[in-house]
């Protein structure tokens, strides 16, 4: 029960965090954290199928796609520039 509240609170903080993060890299990382927590919530809600899918897709593939995009639009500091 308390765990639910903690996780939900974390989700909301992450969601607000994506709005206010200054660098795009931070935004994407926060979003990936959001997805991982979401996977935990699916597991708590007794839907392991969703948990696996969300972990593989939300935190995995979507994250990779966002990172590739950031690299292509030169929003990653330190790799070039």
């Amino acid at each position, binding site marked *: 029960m308390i765990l639910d509240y903690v996780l939900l609170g974390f989700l909301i903080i992450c969601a607000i965090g994506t709005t206010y993060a200054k660098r795009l890299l931070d935004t994407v990382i926060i979003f990936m954290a959001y997805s991982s927590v979401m996977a935990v919530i699916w597991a708590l809600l007794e*839907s*392991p*199928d969703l*948990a*696996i*899918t969300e972990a*593989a*897709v939300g935190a*995995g*593939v979507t994250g*990779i*796609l966002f990172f*590739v*995009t950031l690299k*292509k639009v030169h929003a990653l500091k330190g790799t*070039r520039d």
Partner: protein
Amino acid sequence: MKNDAGKWEKFFKWINGETTLDSVILAKSRRKRFLKRKLRQQKAQIMANKLKRSKRKIENVICLIVAAIFIGILLYTASGLPICGRWENPANNEVTKRYIEKGVEETGAVNLVSGMILDYRAFDTFGESCVLFTAVICVAILLKRDKNNTDITEDTETAEDDAISNADGNLILKLSAKIVTPFILLYGIYVILNGHLSPGGGFSGGAIIGAGLILYTTAFGQESTRRFFTYETFKKISSGCLLVYCFSKGYSFFTGGNHLESMIPLGKPGNILSGGLILPLNICVGIIVACTMYGIYSFFTKGDI
């Protein structure tokens, strides 16, 4: 006048054979394009700054208020909904009951979710695979290299990046990729094959395999993946799997719709070879998803598979 003089000079040069016409024109157009792009970039910057200050603020406040009211209404709506987690909720009705109690017997799948999405409500899932297919086609339209979509600076950048990553060897990445990739692929295959027995299934397994392929590509470069996975194989494999999916689902819809007996045995629930069409469908979906994920990634990075 000044401009004209420049033109005359070039003309004389051309007559004297110092330059060719092509190079003059090319250089000119290239410079023009470059200048235009730079101008655009600057303009975009100025615009962004200017707009941020003035108009945006008022709009934002209005939107915030509207959205707050909207959320309030939704919260009020939800507060009247049935309490979460109770057995008596309307969502747990005769449909759920049949899915759970008869599911194993009727679909042959022990994982009831799998049985539900690939047998009871298979049309949705067919639509879902079509969404994925459409998305990868759209990404291909947008990002596959062609004459509208080539950028010299970007090409040089990617080439440089490749050179850097080849030069320093990336030892840690390569070694770990070498060790980890087989296990990732194996796990993905396990998840796909056990889709009807345990959590997971075609989609999650396919995404895992796709991630494994992506890891392999980042470590060893696209050339190494191209040895066994080119654009042609991508096209053939994904459309072939979708066709198998389309036909097998078409068969079961056709027999179902016309009240015919399906010829496919369900097998003994719990065995790996059970669940009628669910296992082959899961394999098809898995392959499609793996190809799609890898395809999208390579379109994003290199513009080609």
